[in-house]
């Protein structure tokens, strides 16, 4: 569960954010430079908001009033970068294992590396290096690596923008599936309105830092 209400002063405009998300996928959509990635980075702790507060599961990870700013590594947030940011000097398996907590917090999820690799259909790639796999496969590795940390919230920064249409459609379906399996909220940044409508339970449109439109769409395929 995420409650974020903050402001971030950017060079050309001020970013105002008011997000509340309990489960499902929140799609942030808007043109380049609208502040989408900044929102993700503020939530993750890679950037500091100018003012406001961010609560995850009712625990404050940032609060300007109370002087709280929990470091990234303790926020329990999974982050999938736009360029995947896979470690080039590690195999797929080492990448996925990098953030595995020493002692798992959610034992019933049976979070071992083989399960996660199989779930994302990348088990056969475990000994390959990132530059030996395709873009779609890199995306799966990045997802597996983020999920392996047992996050309470998953942030995805334009995760599908660099992929061809076929791979994109497949991964869109898998993201939906993953979200229902994992039962944690996802925030997904995209510049593609169609993609936002297809994936988002909630959609926020951003333009120059302002939240323009909020839709609460119940997706048909979820009801089925």
């Amino acid at each position, binding site marked *: 569960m995420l409650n974020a209400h903050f402001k971030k002063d950017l060079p050309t405009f001020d970013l105002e954010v008011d997000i509340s998300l309990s489960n499902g996928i929140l799609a942030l959509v808007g043109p380049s430079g609208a502040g989408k990635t900044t929102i993700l980075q503020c939530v*993750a702790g*890679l950037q500091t908001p100018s003012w406001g507060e961010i609560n995850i599961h009712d625990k404050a990870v940032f609060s300007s009033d109370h002087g709280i700013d929990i*470091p*990234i*590594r*303790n926020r329990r*947030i*999974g*982050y999938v*970068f736009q*360029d995947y*940011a896979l*470690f*080039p*000097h590690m195999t797929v398996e080492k990448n996925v294992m*990098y*953030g595995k*907590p020493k002692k798992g917090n959610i034992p019933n999820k049976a979070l071992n590396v083989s399960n996660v690799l199989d779930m994302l259909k990348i088990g056969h790639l475990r000994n390959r*290096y990132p*530059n*030996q796999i395709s873009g779609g496969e890199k995306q799966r590795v990045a997802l597996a*690596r*983020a999920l392996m*940390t047992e996050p309470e919230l998953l942030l995805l920064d334009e995760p599908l923008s660099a992929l061809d249409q076929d791979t994109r459609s497949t991964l869109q379906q898998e993201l939906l599936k993953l979200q229902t399996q994992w039962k944690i909220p996802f925030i997904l940044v995209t510049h593609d309105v169609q993609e936002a409508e297809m994936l988002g339970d909630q959609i926020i449109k951003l333009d120059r830092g302002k939240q323009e439109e909020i839709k609460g769409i119940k997706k048909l395929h979820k009801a089925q």
Partner: protein
Amino acid sequence: MEFSFIPIILSLKVAFASVIIVACSSIPIAGLMAKREFLGKDVVESIITLPLVLPPSVIGFMLLVFFGKNGPLGKLLEQWFHTRIVFTLEGAVIAAAVVSLPLMYQSVKVAMESVDQNLEKAARTLGAGELKVFFTITLPLAWNGIVAGLVLAFARSLGEFGATLMIAGNIPGKTQTMPLAIYFANESGDTRQASILVIIMTVFSFLVIYGLNRWGKGSKRDSRGGGNNA
């Protein structure tokens, strides 16, 4: 006169000791300088790089001032450890380390700065603290630059002449390294000794540069090592 191998052995000792000191100091310093902003950073940077442009005699003179009998460090060493640096092989090591530090430092810093920051950010989102990020991401991806720096520092240490002469003197069998032996053999007309040492140094230096160039090209092709260029 018979050819003496001792200068070669002394030079190797000095160069190895110097490289160890340079590696242990330049890697953490470069890590800090590449990743952190602090007051007076430019001043620190300039001081580290200074030996690259100063004449070795100036460095030798400064080292004498510091480590001489009445210098601040020289006095301390004398009082606490009953030891001295001037006219010893340790002095030669210090001289070599000071002049080769900037080479190693520059090489490591550039390599660390070129490590993709997103990778370090990704590691932090995966729960890594700053030390883990440094040792598992930054350092391995800057490895090419570190090795290049080590080799350059070793070669520069081996060739150090001016500062070494001033602080360690020219004591055959004790502080007379290869470059000093060449100079003084030539002065005293022993061209055979001088020529052999000149050939050894030239061949070695050529191999270092050639090897580094070859290796640099190879690692760009290498599918795994080129991560910092990605």
